[in-house]
Protein backbone atom coordinates (compact mmCIF):
# COMPACT_ATOMS: atom_id res chain seq x y z
CA UNK A 1 0.00 0.00 0.00
CA UNK A 2 1.38 3.41 -0.95
CA UNK A 3 1.10 6.20 1.57
CA UNK A 4 1.99 9.83 1.16
CA UNK A 5 4.24 9.99 4.24
CA UNK A 6 6.92 7.82 5.81
CA UNK A 7 5.88 5.24 8.40
CA UNK A 8 7.62 4.87 11.73
CA UNK A 9 7.89 8.59 12.31
CA UNK A 10 6.50 8.27 15.82
CA UNK A 11 8.38 7.02 18.86
CA UNK A 12 5.20 6.29 20.77
CA UNK A 13 1.63 5.70 19.71
CA UNK A 14 -1.59 6.78 21.44
CA UNK A 15 -3.74 3.62 21.65
CA UNK A 16 -6.69 2.24 23.61
CA UNK A 17 -8.82 -0.84 24.11
CA UNK A 18 -12.61 -0.57 24.44
CA UNK A 19 -14.44 -3.60 25.84
CA UNK A 20 -17.77 -3.43 24.01
CA UNK A 21 -19.18 -6.24 26.13
CA UNK A 22 -19.47 -3.79 29.00
CA UNK A 23 -20.58 -0.54 27.33
CA UNK A 24 -24.02 0.62 28.53
CA UNK A 25 -24.21 3.74 26.32
CA UNK A 26 -24.51 6.10 29.27
CA UNK A 27 -22.78 8.73 27.09
CA UNK A 28 -20.66 9.96 30.00
CA UNK A 29 -17.62 9.82 27.70
CA UNK A 30 -19.52 11.84 25.11
CA UNK A 31 -20.39 14.56 27.57
CA UNK A 32 -16.95 14.59 29.20
CA UNK A 33 -15.50 15.36 25.76
CA UNK A 34 -18.24 17.80 24.82
CA UNK A 35 -17.90 19.83 28.00
CA UNK A 36 -14.12 19.96 27.60
CA UNK A 37 -13.55 20.66 23.93
CA UNK A 38 -16.66 21.30 21.80
CA UNK A 39 -19.04 23.55 23.72
CA UNK A 40 -18.48 26.76 21.74
CA UNK A 41 -20.41 28.40 18.89
CA UNK A 42 -19.99 26.50 15.64
CA UNK A 43 -19.34 23.22 17.44
CA UNK A 44 -22.97 22.36 18.13
CA UNK A 45 -23.06 19.35 15.80
CA UNK A 46 -19.55 18.24 16.70
CA UNK A 47 -19.19 15.07 18.78
CA UNK A 48 -15.53 14.03 18.84
CA UNK A 49 -16.62 11.15 21.05
CA UNK A 50 -19.91 9.45 20.32
CA UNK A 51 -21.58 6.18 21.23
CA UNK A 52 -23.81 4.66 18.58
CA UNK A 53 -26.17 1.72 18.82
CA UNK A 54 -25.34 -0.94 16.27
CA UNK A 55 -26.80 -1.96 13.93
CA UNK A 56 -29.38 0.86 14.05
CA UNK A 57 -27.41 3.96 14.77
CA UNK A 58 -24.47 5.82 13.29
CA UNK A 59 -22.91 9.27 13.46
CA UNK A 60 -22.83 10.83 10.95
CA UNK A 61 -25.76 8.85 9.70
CA UNK A 62 -24.84 5.61 7.86
CA UNK A 63 -21.12 6.50 7.82
CA UNK A 64 -19.91 2.90 7.83
CA UNK A 65 -22.50 1.62 5.40
CA UNK A 66 -21.57 4.39 2.97
CA UNK A 67 -17.81 3.86 3.34
CA UNK A 68 -18.12 0.12 2.77
CA UNK A 69 -20.43 0.71 -0.16
CA UNK A 70 -17.97 3.11 -1.81
CA UNK A 71 -15.20 0.53 -1.55
CA UNK A 72 -17.48 -2.14 -2.95
CA UNK A 73 -18.31 0.10 -5.92
CA UNK A 74 -14.59 0.73 -6.50
CA UNK A 75 -13.77 -2.99 -6.41
CA UNK A 76 -16.98 -4.90 -7.18
CA UNK A 77 -16.97 -8.37 -5.64
CA UNK A 78 -13.32 -8.08 -4.60
CA UNK A 79 -13.67 -6.79 -1.04
CA UNK A 80 -13.12 -10.14 0.63
CA UNK A 81 -11.19 -11.52 3.58
CA UNK A 82 -8.90 -14.49 3.62
CA UNK A 83 -10.41 -16.49 6.47
CA UNK A 84 -7.01 -17.47 7.85
CA UNK A 85 -5.15 -15.35 10.37
CA UNK A 86 -1.58 -15.68 9.09
CA UNK A 87 0.34 -12.76 10.56
CA UNK A 88 0.61 -12.33 14.32
CA UNK A 89 0.85 -8.59 13.79
CA UNK A 90 -2.47 -8.62 11.91
CA UNK A 91 -4.72 -10.72 14.20
CA UNK A 92 -7.81 -9.52 12.34
CA UNK A 93 -6.81 -11.58 9.25
CA UNK A 94 -5.68 -10.88 5.71
CA UNK A 95 -7.76 -8.59 3.54
CA UNK A 96 -7.65 -9.30 -0.19
CA UNK A 97 -9.59 -6.21 -1.29
CA UNK A 98 -8.52 -2.61 -1.70
CA UNK A 99 -8.13 0.03 1.00
CA UNK A 100 -9.35 3.62 0.86
CA UNK A 101 -5.91 4.58 -0.48
CA UNK A 102 -5.76 1.88 -3.14
CA UNK A 103 -9.28 2.58 -4.40
CA UNK A 104 -8.19 5.93 -5.85
CA UNK A 105 -5.65 7.05 -8.43
CA UNK A 106 -3.65 8.90 -5.74
CA UNK A 107 -3.62 12.13 -7.75
CA UNK A 108 -7.13 13.51 -8.08
CA UNK A 109 -7.83 12.30 -4.56
CA UNK A 110 -5.62 10.67 -1.93
CA UNK A 111 -8.24 8.49 -0.31
CA UNK A 112 -11.69 7.30 -1.28
CA UNK A 113 -14.40 9.01 0.70
CA UNK A 114 -17.48 11.22 0.74
CA UNK A 115 -18.61 14.36 2.50
CA UNK A 116 -21.61 13.83 4.77
CA UNK A 117 -24.47 16.27 4.37
CA UNK A 118 -25.37 18.70 7.12
CA UNK A 119 -28.48 16.64 7.72
CA UNK A 120 -26.36 13.57 8.40
CA UNK A 121 -24.40 15.38 11.12
CA UNK A 122 -27.60 16.34 12.92
CA UNK A 123 -29.45 14.26 15.50
CA UNK A 124 -26.58 11.84 16.19
CA UNK A 125 -28.83 9.34 17.91
CA UNK A 126 -31.50 9.15 15.25
CA UNK A 127 -32.59 5.56 14.58
CA UNK A 128 -31.17 4.43 17.88
CA UNK A 129 -33.05 3.17 20.90
CA UNK A 130 -33.38 6.52 22.56
CA UNK A 131 -36.62 8.48 22.71
CA UNK A 132 -35.75 12.06 21.79
CA UNK A 133 -38.76 13.64 23.51
CA UNK A 134 -41.88 12.86 25.43
CA UNK A 135 -44.98 13.58 23.32
CA UNK A 136 -48.04 14.80 25.19
CA UNK A 137 -50.17 11.89 24.11
CA UNK A 138 -47.47 9.31 24.61
CA UNK A 139 -45.94 7.02 22.07
CA UNK A 140 -44.09 3.74 21.95
CA UNK A 141 -41.12 2.25 20.21
CA UNK A 142 -40.94 -1.32 19.02
CA UNK A 143 -39.20 -3.57 21.51
CA UNK A 144 -35.67 -4.61 20.61
CA UNK A 145 -36.03 -8.35 20.68
CA UNK A 146 -32.92 -9.01 18.65
CA UNK A 147 -29.28 -8.27 19.27
CA UNK A 148 -27.69 -4.88 19.38
CA UNK A 149 -24.64 -3.32 20.99
CA UNK A 150 -23.12 0.04 21.76
CA UNK A 151 -20.10 1.21 19.78
CA UNK A 152 -18.11 3.99 21.42
CA UNK A 153 -15.99 5.92 18.93
CA UNK A 154 -13.31 8.59 18.95
CA UNK A 155 -10.62 9.50 16.41
CA UNK A 156 -8.47 6.42 15.87
CA UNK A 157 -5.25 8.45 15.63
CA UNK A 158 -4.40 6.12 12.76
CA UNK A 159 -0.87 5.10 11.86
CA UNK A 160 -1.73 6.02 8.24
CA UNK A 161 -4.33 8.78 8.68
CA UNK A 162 -6.47 9.37 5.58
CA UNK A 163 -7.20 12.88 6.83
CA UNK A 164 -3.50 13.71 6.91
CA UNK A 165 -2.84 12.22 3.49
CA UNK A 166 -5.66 14.18 1.88
CA UNK A 167 -4.93 17.65 3.23
CA UNK A 168 -3.84 19.94 0.36
CA UNK A 169 -2.37 22.41 2.88
CA UNK A 170 -0.35 19.91 4.94
CA UNK A 171 -2.20 21.31 7.92
CA UNK A 172 -2.61 17.92 9.58
CA UNK A 173 0.29 16.27 11.34
CA UNK A 174 1.00 13.26 13.52
CA UNK A 175 3.02 14.10 16.60
CA UNK A 176 6.25 12.07 16.85
CA UNK A 177 6.13 11.88 20.66
CA UNK A 178 2.72 10.20 20.94
CA UNK A 179 1.19 9.68 17.49
CA UNK A 180 -1.73 12.00 18.20
CA UNK A 181 -3.12 13.44 14.95
CA UNK A 182 -3.77 17.19 15.10
CA UNK A 183 -5.00 19.93 12.76
CA UNK A 184 -2.88 23.09 12.64
CA UNK A 185 -5.63 25.69 12.88
CA UNK A 186 -3.30 28.34 11.46
CA UNK A 187 -2.69 26.44 8.24
CA UNK A 188 -6.16 24.93 7.76
CA UNK A 189 -8.27 26.73 5.17
CA UNK A 190 -11.37 24.60 5.56
CA UNK A 191 -11.21 22.76 2.23
CA UNK A 192 -12.74 19.77 4.02
CA UNK A 193 -10.73 17.19 2.10
CA UNK A 194 -10.01 15.53 5.46
CA UNK A 195 -13.72 15.36 6.26
CA UNK A 196 -14.21 13.60 2.94
CA UNK A 197 -11.23 11.26 3.30
CA UNK A 198 -11.52 10.04 6.90
CA UNK A 199 -13.43 6.75 6.55
CA UNK A 200 -14.47 6.94 10.21
CA UNK A 201 -15.79 10.50 9.75
CA UNK A 202 -13.98 11.91 12.74
CA UNK A 203 -12.77 15.14 11.13
CA UNK A 204 -15.47 17.81 11.46
CA UNK A 205 -15.89 21.24 9.88
CA UNK A 206 -16.56 24.28 12.07
CA UNK A 207 -18.42 27.01 10.16
CA UNK A 208 -17.63 29.82 12.59
CA UNK A 209 -13.86 29.47 12.14
CA UNK A 210 -14.00 27.92 8.65
CA UNK A 211 -11.56 25.26 9.73
CA UNK A 212 -11.72 21.57 10.50
CA UNK A 213 -11.42 20.29 14.03
CA UNK A 214 -11.05 16.80 15.45
CA UNK A 215 -10.28 14.85 18.61
CA UNK A 216 -7.02 16.13 20.07
CA UNK A 217 -6.47 13.08 22.27
CA UNK A 218 -6.62 15.42 25.31
CA UNK A 219 -2.94 16.03 24.58
CA UNK A 220 -2.31 18.28 27.61
CA UNK A 221 -3.28 15.35 29.84
CA UNK A 222 -1.27 12.89 27.75
CA UNK A 223 1.74 15.22 28.12
CA UNK A 224 1.37 15.06 31.90
CA UNK A 225 0.59 18.77 32.27
CA UNK A 226 -2.20 18.08 34.77
CA UNK A 227 -0.85 18.46 38.30
CA UNK A 228 -2.94 15.52 39.54
CA UNK A 229 -0.46 12.99 38.13
CA UNK A 230 2.80 14.71 39.06
CA UNK A 231 3.90 15.31 35.50
CA UNK A 232 3.25 11.78 34.25
CA UNK A 233 0.87 10.98 31.38
CA UNK A 234 -2.81 10.92 32.23
CA UNK A 235 -5.69 9.29 30.35
CA UNK A 236 -7.96 11.54 28.22
CA UNK A 237 -11.25 12.80 29.60
CA UNK A 238 -13.46 10.30 27.75
CA UNK A 239 -11.42 7.39 29.11
CA UNK A 240 -11.20 8.66 32.67
CA UNK A 241 -14.94 9.36 32.83
CA UNK A 242 -16.06 5.91 31.67
CA UNK A 243 -18.70 4.63 34.09
CA UNK A 244 -18.87 1.13 32.64
CA UNK A 245 -15.12 0.64 33.01
CA UNK A 246 -14.83 -0.36 29.36
CA UNK A 247 -11.78 1.72 28.43
CA UNK A 248 -8.03 1.37 28.91
CA UNK A 249 -5.75 3.87 27.19
CA UNK A 250 -2.00 4.23 26.99
CA UNK A 251 1.11 4.97 24.95
CA UNK A 252 3.00 2.12 23.32
CA UNK A 253 6.54 2.24 21.99
CA UNK A 254 6.94 2.08 18.20
CA UNK A 255 9.86 0.56 16.28
CA UNK A 256 11.56 2.30 13.37
CA UNK A 257 9.58 0.26 10.87
CA UNK A 258 6.29 1.50 12.36
CA UNK A 259 5.39 -1.71 14.21
CA UNK A 260 4.78 -1.81 17.92
CA UNK A 261 7.73 -2.69 20.13
CA UNK A 262 7.64 -5.98 22.01
CA UNK A 263 6.44 -4.98 25.50
CA UNK A 264 4.68 -8.04 26.94
CA UNK A 265 4.17 -6.40 30.34
CA UNK A 266 2.44 -3.33 28.86
CA UNK A 267 -1.33 -3.85 29.29
CA UNK A 268 -2.21 -2.71 25.76
CA UNK A 269 0.48 -4.82 24.11
CA UNK A 270 -0.65 -7.76 26.21
CA UNK A 271 -4.32 -7.40 25.21
CA UNK A 272 -3.70 -6.61 21.53
CA UNK A 273 -0.56 -8.54 20.61
CA UNK A 274 -0.09 -11.32 23.14
CA UNK A 275 -3.69 -12.35 23.82
CA UNK A 276 -5.16 -10.82 20.65
CA UNK A 277 -8.57 -10.25 22.22
CA UNK A 278 -8.91 -6.70 20.89
CA UNK A 279 -9.19 -5.79 17.20
CA UNK A 280 -9.26 -2.53 15.23
CA UNK A 281 -12.53 -1.23 13.76
CA UNK A 282 -12.93 -1.88 10.03
CA UNK A 283 -9.24 -2.71 9.46
CA UNK A 284 -10.04 -3.14 5.76
CA UNK A 285 -10.12 0.66 5.40
CA UNK A 286 -6.31 0.50 5.55
CA UNK A 287 -5.55 3.42 7.86
CA UNK A 288 -4.31 1.17 10.69
CA UNK A 289 -6.49 2.61 13.45
CA UNK A 290 -5.19 2.55 17.01
CA UNK A 291 -8.42 2.20 18.97
CA UNK A 292 -9.03 -1.52 19.51
CA UNK A 293 -12.23 -3.27 20.52
CA UNK A 294 -12.98 -6.45 22.43
CA UNK A 295 -15.90 -7.62 20.25
CA UNK A 296 -19.37 -8.19 21.72
CA UNK A 297 -19.76 -11.94 22.12
CA UNK A 298 -23.53 -12.24 21.55
CA UNK A 299 -23.65 -10.57 18.14
CA UNK A 300 -24.02 -12.64 14.93
CA UNK A 301 -20.55 -13.44 13.66
CA UNK A 302 -21.15 -12.35 10.07
CA UNK A 303 -21.77 -8.82 11.24
CA UNK A 304 -18.70 -8.87 13.46
CA UNK A 305 -16.45 -10.34 10.75
CA UNK A 306 -17.41 -7.45 8.50
CA UNK A 307 -16.62 -4.99 11.29
CA UNK A 308 -13.43 -6.53 12.74
CA UNK A 309 -12.26 -9.16 10.21
CA UNK A 310 -12.19 -12.97 10.50
CA UNK A 311 -9.91 -12.83 13.56
CA UNK A 312 -13.01 -11.95 15.56
CA UNK A 313 -13.85 -15.62 16.21
CA UNK A 314 -10.54 -16.27 17.94
CA UNK A 315 -10.73 -12.99 19.86
CA UNK A 316 -14.14 -13.88 21.28
CA UNK A 317 -13.05 -17.42 22.07
CA UNK A 318 -10.12 -16.10 24.10
CA UNK A 319 -12.24 -13.49 25.84
CA UNK A 320 -14.96 -16.00 26.75
CA UNK A 321 -12.47 -18.33 28.37
CA UNK A 322 -9.77 -15.92 29.57
CA UNK A 323 -6.33 -17.12 30.59
CA UNK A 324 -5.35 -16.49 34.19
CA UNK A 325 -3.23 -13.50 33.14
CA UNK A 326 -5.91 -12.04 30.87
CA UNK A 327 -8.55 -12.16 33.60
CA UNK A 328 -6.20 -10.22 35.85
CA UNK A 329 -5.28 -7.58 33.26
CA UNK A 330 -8.96 -7.00 32.42
CA UNK A 331 -9.35 -5.65 35.97
CA UNK A 332 -7.08 -2.69 35.10
CA UNK A 333 -9.77 -0.98 33.03
CA UNK A 334 -10.64 2.34 34.58
CA UNK A 335 -9.07 1.95 37.98
CA UNK A 336 -6.96 5.12 37.76
CA UNK A 337 -6.54 8.31 35.74
CA UNK A 338 -2.81 7.62 35.56
CA UNK A 339 -1.71 6.11 32.30
CA UNK A 340 -0.42 2.59 33.00
CA UNK A 341 2.86 1.64 31.28
CA UNK A 342 3.54 -1.72 32.92
CA UNK A 343 1.67 -4.33 34.90
CA UNK A 344 2.65 -7.10 37.26
CA UNK A 345 0.52 -9.97 38.55
CA UNK A 346 0.72 -11.33 42.10
CA UNK A 347 -0.80 -14.78 42.23
CA UNK A 348 -3.66 -15.46 44.64
CA UNK A 349 -5.69 -18.50 45.70
CA UNK A 350 -8.15 -20.39 43.54
CA UNK A 351 -11.59 -19.12 44.49
CA UNK A 352 -14.01 -20.87 42.15
CA UNK A 353 -14.46 -23.16 39.22
CA UNK A 354 -17.18 -22.35 36.72
CA UNK A 355 -18.18 -23.96 33.45
CA UNK A 356 -17.75 -21.89 30.30
CA UNK A 357 -18.46 -23.32 26.88
CA UNK A 358 -19.02 -26.72 28.44
CA UNK A 359 -15.52 -26.84 29.92
CA UNK A 360 -14.41 -26.02 33.47
CA UNK A 361 -12.56 -22.76 34.07
CA UNK A 362 -10.61 -22.13 37.24
CA UNK A 363 -10.81 -18.61 38.67
CA UNK A 364 -7.94 -17.32 40.79
CA UNK A 365 -8.09 -14.22 42.94
CA UNK A 366 -4.88 -12.75 41.56
CA UNK A 367 -3.83 -9.16 42.16
CA UNK A 368 -2.80 -7.00 39.22
CA UNK A 369 -0.57 -4.01 39.86
CA UNK A 370 -0.21 -1.08 37.45
CA UNK A 371 2.80 1.24 37.22
CA UNK A 372 3.06 4.73 35.71
CA UNK A 373 5.71 6.07 33.35
CA UNK A 374 8.21 6.50 36.19
CA UNK A 375 7.64 3.01 37.54
CA UNK A 376 5.56 4.09 40.52
CA UNK A 377 2.63 1.93 41.58
CA UNK A 378 -0.63 3.65 40.63
CA UNK A 379 -3.15 0.79 40.68
CA UNK A 380 -3.64 -2.39 42.66
CA UNK A 381 -6.80 -4.41 42.13
CA UNK A 382 -7.91 -8.00 42.65
CA UNK A 383 -9.86 -10.25 40.30
CA UNK A 384 -12.54 -10.52 42.97
CA UNK A 385 -12.78 -7.04 44.35
CA UNK A 386 -14.38 -7.07 47.79
CA UNK A 387 -17.80 -5.40 47.80
CA UNK A 388 -19.56 -3.75 50.71
CA UNK A 389 -23.31 -3.31 50.79
CA UNK A 390 -24.76 -0.38 52.64
CA UNK A 391 -27.58 -0.94 55.08
CA UNK A 392 -31.10 -0.18 53.90
CA UNK A 393 -31.35 3.08 55.83
CA UNK A 394 -28.66 5.34 54.53
CA UNK A 395 -27.25 8.08 56.66
CA UNK A 396 -28.54 11.45 55.53
CA UNK A 397 -28.08 15.02 56.62
Amino acid at each position, binding site marked *: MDYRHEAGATQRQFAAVFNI*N*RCIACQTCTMACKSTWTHSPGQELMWWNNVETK*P*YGSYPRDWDVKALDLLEQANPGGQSWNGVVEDARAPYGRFDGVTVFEATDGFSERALGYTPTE*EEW*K*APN*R*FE*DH*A*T*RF*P*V*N*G*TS*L*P*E*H*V*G*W*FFYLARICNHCSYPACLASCPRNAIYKRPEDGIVLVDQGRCRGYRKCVEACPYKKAMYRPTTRTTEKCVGCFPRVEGLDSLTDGTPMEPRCMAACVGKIRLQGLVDVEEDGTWADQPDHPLNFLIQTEQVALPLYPQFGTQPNIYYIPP*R*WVPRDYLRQMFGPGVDRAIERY*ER*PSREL*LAVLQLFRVTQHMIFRFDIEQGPK*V*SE*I*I*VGGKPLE*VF*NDTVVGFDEQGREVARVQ*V*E*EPTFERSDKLNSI
Partner: protein
Amino acid sequence: MADKTFEHDDPMELVGHTYPVESQQGHDRAAAQTFIEEYALMGWPAARIRGLFDSSEYTACSDIKRRQGEAFVDDLIASVFGVSTNG
Protein backbone atom coordinates in the same frame (compact mmCIF):
# COMPACT_ATOMS: atom_id res chain seq x y z
CA MET B 1 -46.44 16.98 17.70
CA ALA B 2 -48.19 13.75 18.47
CA ASP B 3 -51.30 14.81 16.56
CA LYS B 4 -49.40 15.90 13.47
CA THR B 5 -48.66 13.65 10.56
CA PHE B 6 -45.17 12.29 10.00
CA GLU B 7 -42.74 14.59 8.23
CA HIS B 8 -39.84 12.69 6.74
CA ASP B 9 -37.33 15.53 7.04
CA ASP B 10 -37.94 16.21 10.74
CA PRO B 11 -34.74 15.10 12.52
CA MET B 12 -36.50 15.05 15.90
CA GLU B 13 -39.20 12.65 14.79
CA LEU B 14 -39.30 9.62 17.04
CA VAL B 15 -38.24 6.63 15.00
CA GLY B 16 -37.58 3.08 16.10
CA HIS B 17 -36.32 0.13 14.12
CA THR B 18 -36.25 -3.50 15.03
CA TYR B 19 -33.81 -5.92 13.56
CA PRO B 20 -35.22 -9.22 12.32
CA VAL B 21 -34.07 -12.27 14.27
CA GLU B 22 -34.21 -15.87 13.18
CA SER B 23 -34.38 -17.46 16.59
CA GLN B 24 -35.54 -15.40 19.52
CA GLN B 25 -34.55 -18.06 22.00
CA GLY B 26 -31.11 -18.36 20.46
CA HIS B 27 -30.47 -14.63 20.83
CA ASP B 28 -31.80 -14.57 24.37
CA ARG B 29 -29.60 -17.53 25.23
CA ALA B 30 -26.47 -15.82 23.89
CA ALA B 31 -27.25 -12.58 25.73
CA ALA B 32 -28.16 -14.29 29.04
CA GLN B 33 -25.08 -16.50 28.87
CA THR B 34 -22.93 -13.39 28.42
CA PHE B 35 -24.46 -11.69 31.48
CA ILE B 36 -24.07 -14.78 33.65
CA GLU B 37 -20.50 -15.55 32.65
CA GLU B 38 -19.32 -11.93 32.86
CA TYR B 39 -20.57 -11.62 36.42
CA ALA B 40 -19.35 -15.10 37.36
CA LEU B 41 -15.85 -14.11 36.27
CA MET B 42 -16.13 -11.06 38.52
CA GLY B 43 -16.72 -13.38 41.44
CA TRP B 44 -20.47 -12.96 41.84
CA PRO B 45 -22.20 -16.02 43.35
CA ALA B 46 -25.04 -17.74 41.49
CA ALA B 47 -27.81 -16.43 43.76
CA ARG B 48 -26.71 -12.81 43.27
CA ILE B 49 -26.66 -13.20 39.49
CA ARG B 50 -30.12 -14.76 39.65
CA GLY B 51 -31.25 -11.55 41.37
CA LEU B 52 -30.43 -9.56 38.22
CA PHE B 53 -33.04 -11.53 36.30
CA ASP B 54 -35.66 -11.04 39.06
CA SER B 55 -35.39 -7.25 39.26
CA SER B 56 -37.13 -5.04 36.73
CA GLU B 57 -34.38 -2.49 37.35
CA TYR B 58 -32.19 -4.67 35.13
CA THR B 59 -34.20 -4.46 31.92
CA ALA B 60 -32.15 -6.71 29.69
CA CYS B 61 -32.01 -9.56 32.20
CA SER B 62 -35.62 -9.30 33.38
CA ASP B 63 -36.90 -9.08 29.79
CA ILE B 64 -35.18 -12.35 28.98
CA LYS B 65 -36.78 -14.01 32.00
CA ARG B 66 -40.18 -12.58 31.04
CA ARG B 67 -39.87 -13.92 27.50
CA GLN B 68 -38.27 -17.29 28.21
CA GLY B 69 -39.39 -18.18 31.72
CA GLU B 70 -37.68 -18.96 35.00
CA ALA B 71 -36.57 -22.46 34.06
CA PHE B 72 -34.64 -21.08 31.08
CA VAL B 73 -32.65 -18.75 33.36
CA ASP B 74 -32.15 -21.34 36.08
CA ASP B 75 -30.85 -23.89 33.61
CA LEU B 76 -28.34 -21.41 32.20
CA ILE B 77 -27.04 -20.42 35.63
CA ALA B 78 -26.82 -24.08 36.60
CA SER B 79 -24.84 -24.80 33.45
CA VAL B 80 -22.21 -22.26 34.52
CA PHE B 81 -22.08 -22.94 38.25
CA GLY B 82 -23.09 -26.58 38.24
CA VAL B 83 -25.68 -25.85 40.93
CA SER B 84 -29.37 -24.98 40.88
CA THR B 85 -30.57 -21.56 42.05
CA ASN B 86 -34.28 -22.28 42.17
CA GLY B 87 -34.42 -23.69 45.61
